């Protein structure tokens, strides 16, 4: 791929096939941490870091462990294991060497273990038969797309404090309606990059 192709690839992963708003992966932290802007940005940073790392390592696991041993059917469980171990490892290393960042991310670092967007991206990387460089770029761009959606959503949700939302809709219900609106808005990007 040329440089221009890579740019389109990145735009596609961020806007067109947004991991949250087009594929609807990782909704649980999307609704969980979007009540306040600072937690949303903290989560975004953690997701960008972990998703890129996990994408790289699961790619290596797939092509250097699972395929040579012909045990591809263990993909899901192996990837979950790898992601969980990676998050723990990152947490331990970060606590020791980057205490400031560790404190800033707080609870969100371990929470990422259960973020299905991370596993989703790892599996998409394999399904689309990306090479290693593609994997790194796609994982990073997907994470940026995730962060973009999360931060936009947190900005909107912060304002709901001021709105007289009916009690039955308050909280997660109106959050899901708003997520649907965001997905409607992002559907305008469809077809911007050829392919899917």
């Amino acid at each position, binding site marked *: 791929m040329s440089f221009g192709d890579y740019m389109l690839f990145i735009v596609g992963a961020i806007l067109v096939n947004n991991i949250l708003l087009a594929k609807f992966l990782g909704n649980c932290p999307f609704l969980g941490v979007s009540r306040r802007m600072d937690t949303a940005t903290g989560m975004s940073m953690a997701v960008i870091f972990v998703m890129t790392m996990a994408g790289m390592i699961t790619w290596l696991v797939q092509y250097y462990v699972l395929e040579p041993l012909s045990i591809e059917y263990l993909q899901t469980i192996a990837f979950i294991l790898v992601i969980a171990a990676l998050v723990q490892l990152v947490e331990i290393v970060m606590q020791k060497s980057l205490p400031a960042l560790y404190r800033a991310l707080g609870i969100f670092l371990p929470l990422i273990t259960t973020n299905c967007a991370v596993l989703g991206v790892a599996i998409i990387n394999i399904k689309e038969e990306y090479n290693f460089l593609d994997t790194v770029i796609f994982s990073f761009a997907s994470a940026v797309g995730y962060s973009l959606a999360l*931060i*936009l959503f947190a*900005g*909107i949700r*912060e*304002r*709901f404090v*001021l*709105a*007289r*939302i*009916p009690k039955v*809709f308050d909280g997660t219900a*109106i959050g899901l*309606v*708003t997520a649907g*609106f*965001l997905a*409607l*808005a*992002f*559907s*305008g*990007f*469809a*077809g*911007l990059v050829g392919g899917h």
Partner: protein
Amino acid sequence: MSAPLLTVSTSPHWLGRTTVRSMHVEWLIALAPALVMGVYLFSYQALIVVGLSAAAAVAAEAAYQKIAKQPILVGDLHALLMGVLLGLILPAGAPWWLPVVGGALAVVLGKLFFGGLGGYPMNPVLIAWAALALSWPEHMQSFFMPFTNEVSETPLMMLKNDVSTLEVVGLSGLWWGQFPGAIGANCGWALLLGGLYLVVRRLVPWQIPLGVVLGAILLSLLAAYTDPNLGQLGYNTFGQNFAIALFHLGAGGVMISAFFLGTEPVSSPVTPWGMFLFGLGIGFMAVIVRVWGGPVDGAFFGVLVMSAATPLFDRIRPKVLGKVVPGT
């Protein structure tokens, strides 16, 4: 007892005469030219679509507030304005139930679920439009050729397949609404007239329309100079390329987004630079989607995406006047 010598009350002590209702009356006045042109171009069918949409919006609001035992606020005319705006961006050939569903969706889903006027995150009219466009795309494209009942392709739909549309569609005809299009978004001059009225009356900040127009022009010029498809036209003078920009301004939803939909007071930013960048984003996205994207027109999607970013634009604060003297 004699009258009290001194009346003490909390501020405000002096009230302007502007109310929510009077503001919406002025918006409706500003929409009149577009509506008149729509009825002139598409005859009584345009009036039916707009009327149904407005009636559905008002009825839905009254019914919801009645059922929810809330005060009925139909009198502030916001539901009427929303219904009229939605009707103006629908095609004249829409079946009767399309504006009815749309009007009710806009009011109930887009506005009342968020607690009514002032609470919603995105323009409810465009939420309804996007929902209709994704649900019934075939009906949302039943645009009439003006003065006839023939369903035909809009200039933007033709442009998707064939760039030489730009040579066939005359600019003055386009700006006077002589080509197929939505009821009220068709005549650029009528929208400009109504929009300038709102700007002069200061109901709409000038930064947003300026941003939209500038954004659309800049991106059209970029496309004209770099896109290989448009390059086939062999345009090389600035005037020819600028004609492409004028085409994009006049066609589809750019003008109505610039003055009426993007400037919706609840879902647009409030700071000067925020408003300008918000408008610029709408203009950019309108042309990006038209030239490189999937949907026919990106102006409405641009408004939706940008209003999602409104809380972020509002973080661009204007400089505070005065300064703190150190040591005090």
